[in-house]
């Protein structure tokens, strides 16, 4: 009686933390669009579309003048180009959480990373501080 319940709990936990998705995210397709590379990579690394769902990207790109506390506004036609690229290459995520660093798989994978390492990276947005080839879509486990 106890064992099946435990098994069920493990299965439920596995479902909710979406380890399948996390496993897939060791590598993601690199960004190939030059406009996306230039504009999205101007202040931080250009994050690959696979990390969030299309509706979440749309929300982020729909309000670039309030971009996580920064005015990152761009001409409308540039935003359209970027939006089309992100929509076409998006992954899956639950609606609501806009930050990649708020996603359950991200939190699970970075749970063991200490404050000093994040402090040295300046920001959790700075993937390249630890993942040397993050801009190429490579996030190997270290």
């Amino acid at each position, binding site marked *: 009686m106890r064992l099946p319940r435990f098994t069920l709990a493990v299965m439920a936990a596995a479902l909710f933390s979406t380890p399948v998705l996390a496993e897939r995210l060791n590598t993601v397709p690199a960004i190939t669009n030059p406009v996306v590379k230039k504009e999205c*990579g101007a*202040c*931080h*690394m250009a994050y690959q579309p696979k990390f969030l769902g299309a509706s979440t990207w749309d929300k982020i790109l729909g309000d670039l003048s309030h971009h996580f506390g*920064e*005015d*990152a*506004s*761009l001409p409308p036609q540039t935003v359209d180009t970027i939006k089309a690229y992100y929509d076409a290459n998006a992954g899956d995520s639950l609606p609501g959480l806009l930050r990649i660093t708020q996603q359950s798989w991200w939190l699970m994978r970075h749970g063991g990373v200490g404050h000093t390492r994040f402090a040295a*990276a*300046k*920001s959790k*947005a*700075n993937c*390249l*501080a630890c993942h040397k080839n993050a801009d190429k879509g490579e996030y190997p486990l270290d």
Partner: protein
Amino acid sequence: MPIRTLLTCTLCLSFAVVLAPAAWADQNSAGRAAVLAAYAAQARKADANFTGFSAARGELLYSSRHLKARRADIQACAACHGADPTKPGENARTGRPIDPVAVSANPKRFTALENTEKWFGRNCKEIIGRDCTALEKGDYITYLQSR
């Protein structure tokens, strides 16, 4: 009289032929001159007494702390671009490296008006707390062109 005109024309043409390659050789300088000319025209419109841009005023703008900055921890151009603009900088929020902003170290700086305007548009609001004037933009470029 026609002979004089002909001579003048020939002189002009030969000058053009001699000088043109030099101009092509430095497209960056030409682009920057055009950007500065656009700001000079705006500055003249705003103030009839405008006499020119100043590297000294630009340096002051670059290195000063601006108390109206949107963030208390990022109050100067130098916060991201570095105290020495000939060295690479780093985005103070994200840690992303920034190519040097001084023209001597990065000749492509300020060579396209659209791109230059994009960055003044974002960073002036962020650091100075308002849009920069054409005079301030021209001073800034003139300073970084001298570095």
